[in-house]
């Protein structure tokens, strides 16, 4: 089936998020031509270099200075062509995809992990306790889960057109309370290291930060850690009432493995658990379990991981 596909790019820290190339990969597998919209203009040069992209539309305007999902989707919607729209399933991607779908009268399906001609998709429900297979009629909007699709290669030379929009903003930002961490966000990283109450006190998280910096990972936490220690922000919480993460490797340190924690990380490709209690439930879903304290394990892990990664 050939159809025009529009992708709304995902940006992190002003550059293109890797999920954008994964969206192009997913799109190219079922149709094309593929155009990429870059809200606010961020990442348009990088997007044009993805193989399989035929056109990049860089949308600029004051409305992109702060975040208002209705204003953003209103600015983006007129530039959408074709019958299939893809976004990433980040929080922002989900909001933009739903708003655009509702404006156009299209159905929206979030966080898909596979996509076939037709269109049929699969996605996980009940926090990973089941998977649903859906058939979606075209036209539609889909958001895709990071690390679920093969990325398209670099090597494209798409033309970039820049448009200027003006859009009414109704959400006024009064004050920035805490900047998004300089650190990588758990929902975006390929490797996530999370600490739980077993870390003993919040200052011990510095050991996790050091290890994370060494290997380019993000640091997460259990709810017990977030609730007990003010120093550990809610943005780090992984689980049912925190973030859902799907990294290639999830390292759980001093986390017992309560069902609500598992809800947020069970779909990780590989899970490594470090816990001093051999009976901890986390070992039930870990691919690799190490029965030891973090005090002994983290230094050894740092040593061996950095040795391997610098090879």
């Amino acid at each position, binding site marked *: 089936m050939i159809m025009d596909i529009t992708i709304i790019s995902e940006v992190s820290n002003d550059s293109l998020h890797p999920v954008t190339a994964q969206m192009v990969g997913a799109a190219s597998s079922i149709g094309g031509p593929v155009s990429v919209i870059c809200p606010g203009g961020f990442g348009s040069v990088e997007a044009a270099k993805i193989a399989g992209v035929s056109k990049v539309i860089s949308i600029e305007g004051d409305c992109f200075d702060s975040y208002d999902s*209705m204003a953003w989707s209103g600015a983006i919607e007129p530039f959408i062509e074709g019958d299939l729209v893809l976004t990433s399933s980040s929080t922002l991607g989900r909001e933009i995809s739903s708003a655009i*779908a509702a404006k156009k009268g299209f159905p929206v399906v979030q966080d898909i992990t596979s996509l076939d001609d037709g269109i049929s998709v699969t996605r*996980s429900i009940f926090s990973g306790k089941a998977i649903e*297979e859906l058939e979606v009629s075209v036209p539609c909007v889909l958001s895709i889960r990071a690390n679920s699709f093969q990325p398209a290669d670099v090597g494209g030379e798409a033309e970039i057109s820049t448009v200027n929009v003006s859009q009414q903003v109704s959400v006024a930002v009064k004050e*920035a309370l805490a900047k998004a961490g300089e650190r990588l966000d758990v929902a975006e990283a390929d490797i996530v290291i999370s600490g739980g109450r077993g870390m003993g006190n919040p200052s011990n998280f510095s050991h996790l930060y050091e290890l994370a910096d060494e290997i380019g990972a993000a640091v997460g936490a259990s709810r017990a850690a977030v609730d007990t220690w003010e120093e550990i922000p809610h943005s780090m919480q992984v689980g*049912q009432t925190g973030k859902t993460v799907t990294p290639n490797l999830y390292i759980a340190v001093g986390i017992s493995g309560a069902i609500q924690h598992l809800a947020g990380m069970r779909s990780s490709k590989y899970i490594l658990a470090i816990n001093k209690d051999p009976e901890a439930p986390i070992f039930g*879903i870990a*691919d690799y379990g190490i029965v030891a304290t973090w005090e002994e394990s983290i230094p*050894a892990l740092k040593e061996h991981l950095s040795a391997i990664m610098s090879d």
Partner: protein
Amino acid sequence: MGVAVLLKQVPDTTAKISVSGSRVDESAITKWSISPYDEYALESAIALKESGVDELVAITCGPQRASKCLTEAASVGADRLIHILTDADFMDSCTLQSILSSAIQRSGCDIVLCGKQAADTNSGSTGPGVASLLGYSCVGSVTEISMDGSKISATRLGNTGLEKIEVGGPCVFTFDKGEVELRRPNVRGIMMAKKKPIESIGIEELGIEIGSPKTSLKSHVSPPEKPPGQKFEGAGSIEIVVSKLRDEANVI
């Protein structure tokens, strides 16, 4: 001014989900609860009511059993309960959102609080979708909300971090887990709630046009069984595990 809160009844998060005959087996679910983020939306709606909102309307769409969410909401302070009754086991985003939008219009509320994501669908489509349909503003991932005259301020996790925002007109707020303590109903609240009438409305009574479904459910399946994990004793095993991460799992 009225505030509407959207509550969805979902299997309790501790419930075991089993699949039988390509559908999740609902009869095996013993406990149903208000979806966790919706509890934060409800708590915040009560706080808004305490700071001067005229009426708090709780809305749910679902089968008969879902009326329990509304009674629970009444026991902590909801004034009016609207139940859109349906036995549909699956609804596409277009259908659900037009039903909920119509129920919100019926309630007369121009402030709407809901969950960021339901614990069964894990979607996060409903809040922004309903806002689009109603022409309201939308603020996502809210952890705190307060009212000052006609303006509402909220703390949200925006794309650049935690922010304090302000909105004037009609708006949908989708809630994340906040710092607030969820209140428990007292005995008097529970007694009063039992007597509170629920407006049960069939979808056909809403007077909206529902097109043919644009998404259909083919099947539910259980997640693939993971091969049993490998367990090692002591920190001395870390060198082996790290080499397995590279050679077996290929993740580093």
